[in-house]
């Protein structure tokens, strides 16, 4: 397994944000191509706003958020009498950043000094299992002692997948057999964490669509069971969102947020060309913060989220 894994890790050189930006290069190109059309505009006019609208919508910001940003931009343009492309883009990027503004510390994980339970949830295939492994690896590097719990007892080979990751990152994996009660697995993971002197219990759950009521109830049950075993747990319930997802990500954030106390977001697959623009709307409307981004398939490809880097990768640097 390690040599297979190696095949992919060889290709990492540019640094993570560098790679994300390479991925976003195409978007940026498109954005600047968009601007080529009025690069020598004498006035900042409606046509420019139309172009900007196209660009933002194609970055998945969604119609509402796009319109709000552009309305604000109109005001700024007028008030400050902005004339150049550079100035306009700078203002747009500031306005976007403002939507991502938040209290200090709210993008950090809130772990207890004792035992912390972290639950990963999300729709199918977004990267929960991989993110669980990456996070465990990261916490281990920071001197913590994590343990993984395989509460995805539904998907074929879901358990085996996590076990292999556990071997890779050198972390124990608690599991039952396929079809077992996921809440019972979570319960045992927390217990095992105590018994083995671990300080983080990271629980991977099965992918489920937010519209599946039974399965959402199942998540609530997992939470309740964890709570019963460990007061204040889960300390973090991370919703994993795929950056390739469009407007539906907002529904996911809303509905997972309604069912559980979601404390943060892991935004995966930002190493592609998708910009994850919908997260601007998600942060704005659900008040849930992106805490980490996934930038590849290897353990080290997980980074804390930085709004500045995100926006500059989204809109380009000036």
């Amino acid at each position: 397994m390690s040599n297979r894994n190696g095949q992919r890790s060889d290709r990492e050189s540019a640094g993570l944000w560098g790679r994300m930006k390479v991925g976003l290069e195409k978007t940026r190109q498109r954005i600047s191509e968009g601007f080529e059309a009025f690069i020598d505009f004498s006035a900042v006019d409606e046509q420019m706003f139309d172009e900007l609208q196209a660009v933002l919508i194609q970055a998945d910001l969604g119609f509402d958020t796009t319109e709000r940003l552009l309305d604000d931009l109109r005001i700024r343009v007028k008030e400050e009498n902005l004339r150049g492309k550079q100035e306009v883009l700078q203002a747009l990027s500031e306005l976007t950043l403002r939507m991502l503004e938040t209290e200090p510390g709210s993008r950090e994980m809130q772990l207890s000094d004792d035992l912390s339970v972290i639950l990963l949830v999300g729709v199918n295939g977004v990267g929960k299992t991989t993110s669980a492994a990456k996070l465990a690896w990261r916490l281990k590097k920071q001197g913590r002692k994590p343990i993984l719990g395989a509460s995805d007892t539904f998907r074929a080979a879901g358990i085996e997948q996590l076990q292999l990751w556990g071997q890779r990152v050198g972390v124990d994996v608690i599991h039952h057999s396929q079809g077992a009660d996921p809440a019972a697995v979570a319960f045992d993971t927390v217990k095992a964490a105590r018994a083995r002197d671990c300080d983080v219990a990271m629980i991977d759950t099965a992918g489920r669509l937010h519209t599946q009521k039974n399965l959402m109830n199942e998540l609530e049950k997992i939470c309740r069971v964890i709570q019963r075993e460990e007061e204040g747990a889960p300390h973090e319930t991370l919703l994993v969102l795929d950056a390739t997802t469009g407007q539906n990500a907002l529904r996911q954030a809303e509905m997972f947020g309604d069912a559980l106390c979601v404390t943060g977001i892991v935004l995966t697959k930002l190493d592609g060309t998708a910009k994850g623009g919908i997260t601007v709307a998600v942060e704005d409307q659900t008040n849930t913060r992106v805490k980490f981004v996934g930038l590849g398939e290897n353990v080290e490809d997980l980074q804390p989220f930085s709004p500045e880097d995100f926006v500059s990768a989204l809109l380009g640097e000036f």
Partner: protein
Amino acid sequence: MFESLGDKLQGALKSLTGRGKLTEEDVDRALREVRLALLEADVNFLVAKKFTESVRQRAVGTEVMESLTPGQQVVKIVHDELTQLMGGSEHRLNFSSQPPTVIMLAGLQGSGKTTTCAKLARYLKRQGRNPLLAAADIYRPAAGDQLAQLGDQIDVPVLDMSSSAQPEDIARAAVSKARSSGSDTVLLDTAGRLHIDEEMMEELSAVENAVDVHESLLIVDAMTGQDAVNVAEEFSERIEITGLVLTKMDGDTRGGAALSVLDVTGCPVKFVGTGERPDDLQTFHPDRMASRILGMGDVMTLVEKAEQEMDEEQARRLEQRLREDKFTLEDFLEQMQQVRQMGPLDQLVSMIPGMSPHADSMGDLDEAELVKAEAIIQSMTPEERRSPDIIKRSRRRRIARGSGTRVQDVNRLLKQFSRTRDMISQLTKGQKSQAAQKLRNMGFPRR
């Protein structure tokens, strides 16, 4: 599936129907909303623009504007254009005259390739074919195991070499295994990859060069945003994509990205995935889908689904009862149990003409409620079950007590029952006049 896009589109077009005269401004106003609905559904920016422009062009002609029912004409145009956007007519799989036919599945990470492989195998088996699954995802941990387990579940052989074999070797091995073991179709599951990952894209071409691939299906998550178009373009530049499979259509996604892929790459959607079970795969019918989006229902799919899942005996009995208008609470209970096996109720309801607005309220039927319903119905006398209209207050109280529920629960169940009865009689009236066929051709919403 596509419901919420439908709601928005229907809303946008509502202002047009039922009016005697239309001006260009009316059409423009409605089309602005149509465009917005498309964008909110993740339809690609340029595709949405093109779509509304072509509707407009057809709609503002004198022929439409001066017809007796201009609004409905516009709706019909939208229906036509939607059908067109979605590929016109059904596109089937290509099979080689010299077996084995090789079907390769490709796509981004997490788009649903492995699950779709199993679903396709199941589908092919139903068609009387003899498929072989081959695991060519050599990267994701336990990907081979996953396919092997799925193969077990559906009783289809799986080639999982799980050594250091390269995907093209696996493809070759699969073809020769198919030959020697009499399999007529090879389904090749490949690793998820990013379209900008040069090395990984090269790997796909290598597979294509190693064996004769007859179908290369691009698996696209229906929740994908605007980037879907870029992804599809890159994939189809590297390999010859012959069709799309949209996955995860059972959620509340509006699925617009996928429609754009079709428009931009010209690859037709061949299947849609509507759940996690191996059975949750449907062939894609653009015209039916367009009808469903515009709230015209999709009786054909409903009937096919029922045929697939209900046991024949039960179906015949139910049909009989429906014809005689003798739908009782007992049938209702049996129905609920059956329907639950067919899929989420809201999904089914939305296939019934004119019912899509009610689909939401029907989604809440869960296990606990079913148990309750069962208890309630069992606490009724045979007479009450046959003619629920006689269940007045005191009977309700008795039934509640007998079943350990509350009177409200009994009320709700009875309400659900009468709603279902109405719905079904609407549906059967349709069947009697072969409305299923007609509805499809009619092209107008019923509301």
